[in-house]
C-alpha cells in the first residue's frame, strides 16, 4: 500500500479569478506562478481555468468554478465542516498580516491564542472574496527544523 509523504499543492475554487488573484497577492503576498486558459494553446487543449500562486515555497491553485458553489453565510469567519487552508508566518511578521487585513477591510476573527502546550501560537481566521475559509498562524516551534506531529489531545484551539 502506497504511503503518501507530504502535501504537494492544493486548489481553492473561486467565483472570480481576478478578484481572487488580487486578494491572495495583495493581502497575503502571494505571487503569480502561471495562469492557465488565457492562451490559445490552453483553449485548444481544453484545460481548466486557474491561476497557480506561490506563497513562499507553497504552490496552490485558485480554480475558477464553472458553476455557482454553495457558500456558507459570509458573517461566518471560522468555518466548520468545510476545508480551511492555514498558512504559516514567522511570529515577528504575524502582526503584518493582521494589519494588512485591517487596512484592506477584510473581516477577521482573532488573533486567537492557542495553549502554550501545543505547537501553534496565534491564529487569525478570515475568508477570501468567494468565501473560502482561511487562517494564518505562527508556530511556537518555528525555530525547530523538524517537528513531528504531536499526539492528539494537545488542546489546540484551532
Amino acid at each position, binding site marked *: 500500500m502506497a504511503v503518501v509523504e507530504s502535501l504537494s499543492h492544493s486548489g481553492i475554487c473561486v467565483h*472570480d479569478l481576478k478578484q481572487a488573484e488580487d486578494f491572495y497577492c495583495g493581502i497575503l503576498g502571494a505571487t503569480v506562478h502561471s495562469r492557465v*486558459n488565457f492562451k*490559445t494553446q490552453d483553449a485548444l487543449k*481544453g484545460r481548466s481555468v486557474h491561476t497557480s500562486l506561490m506563497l513562499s515555497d507553497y504552490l496552490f491553485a485558485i480554480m475558477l*468554478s*464553472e458553476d*455557482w458553489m454553495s457558500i456558507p453565510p459570509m458573517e461566518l469567519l471560522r468555518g466548520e465542516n468545510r476545508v480551511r487552508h492555514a498558512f504559516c508566518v514567522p511570529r515577528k511578521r504575524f502582526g503584518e498580516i493582521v494589519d494588512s487585513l485591517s487596512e484592506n477591510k477584510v473581516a477577521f476573527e482573532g488573533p486567537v491564542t492557542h495553549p502554550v502546550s501545543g505547537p501553534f501560537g496565534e491564529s487569525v481566521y478570515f475568508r477570501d472574496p468567494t468565501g473560502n475559509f482561511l487562517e494564518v498562524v505562527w508556530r511556537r516551534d518555528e525555530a525547530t527544523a523538524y517537528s513531528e506531529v504531536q499526539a492528539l489531545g494537545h488542546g489546540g484551539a484551532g
Partner: protein
Amino acid sequence: MMRSVKPPVLPIRAIAHTVIEVADMDRALAFYGERLGLRVPLESWPDGDELCLTCPSGQRLVLRQSDSPRTLPDSGVHQAYRAGPAAIGRIVQSLAADSIAVERYREDRPAEQDDNCYFSDPDGNRIQLIAQPQIAEPGLFGIDHTAVQASDMEWIEDFYGAKLGLSVEHRVGWNTADYVRARAWGEGKEDMAPGTRRWDERYRDIPGGKPGQGRRVPRPNVQVFYRMGDAVLGIFMALRHEQEPPPHQAKGTPRVAYWTDAAALDRTAEILADARIAALGPVRHGAKSPISSSLYFRDPCGNFVELCAEASS
C-alpha cells in the same frame, strides 16, 4: 498592499483612423462611400498606397489593397461605427436589397449588450453598427471601437496595461457568471457574436488518452476591453493559431491609430525601446498631412498600432 507600480497613463484621446485590407479598392470605395456614407478620399493622406475616407466625426477609415485581405471573419475581430437610428435603418435596408446578411448578435461587454447590428464588407471585414439617438447624419458618423485578437492574453495585459498604462474597462472569462451564461449559448438560447464563445473539449490532450475522450463544454472566450478617452479597444483570445507578422516589423496592416500628443509619442518610444519592442518613429509627415507625426509598433501578438500627434500638439 498592492505591490504593482502603475506606469504613467498613455493620454489617448480617440481613435484617429483604422487601416483595413481590401482586395478591390474600387469595390471597397463604393461600399464605404456610397453605401455607408463616408466621404471621398483625402488626397493629402501621407501614404500614397492607401485610400483615406473621412467620417463626419473627423475619424478616418483607410483602405489598403491586399490580394489576401487579413479579415479573420470567424473571429472577434471587427470595426464598430456609431450611427443614428435612421441611418442604421437605411443601411440595413440597402444591405437587404442586395442580399447582404445582417446579424443581431449579443455581446458580453455591458455597453454593447443590446441594439447591435453586424454585417461584413465585400472582403469579409466585419462591421458593427452602434446606434446613438443624438446622431443625425445620414450615414456612419464615426468609429466607436475596434477589436483585434491575440494568442496570449497575459502578454496582452502586460503590454497594454503594465507597459502602456491603459485601464481595463471590462474583462470576460474570469468569473463564474461568464461560464454560467455561456451554457445558455451552448443550449442555443443566446446568439452571441463571433469570438465571444467557444466549445472546449476538456482535457483533450491527456497523455495516453483516446480520441474523442474529452467532454465538450461551452465556454466564454476570454476578452479584455481597454478604454482610452473616447476610444475602446477590444481584444479577443484567438481560437486558433494564425501566422503573425515577424516581431521586427513595426508598421503594417490591419492597424489601429490613436490620437495622442507628441510628448506621448516620445515617451512611448522610450518604453518600447526599454522593452526591446520594435518601433518605427516618431515619423514626421508632410505639411499637408492631417497627422504631424506617427509612432508605429505592434503588440506582442502581432496587432499593429499607431500613435498619432496632431500638428498643433
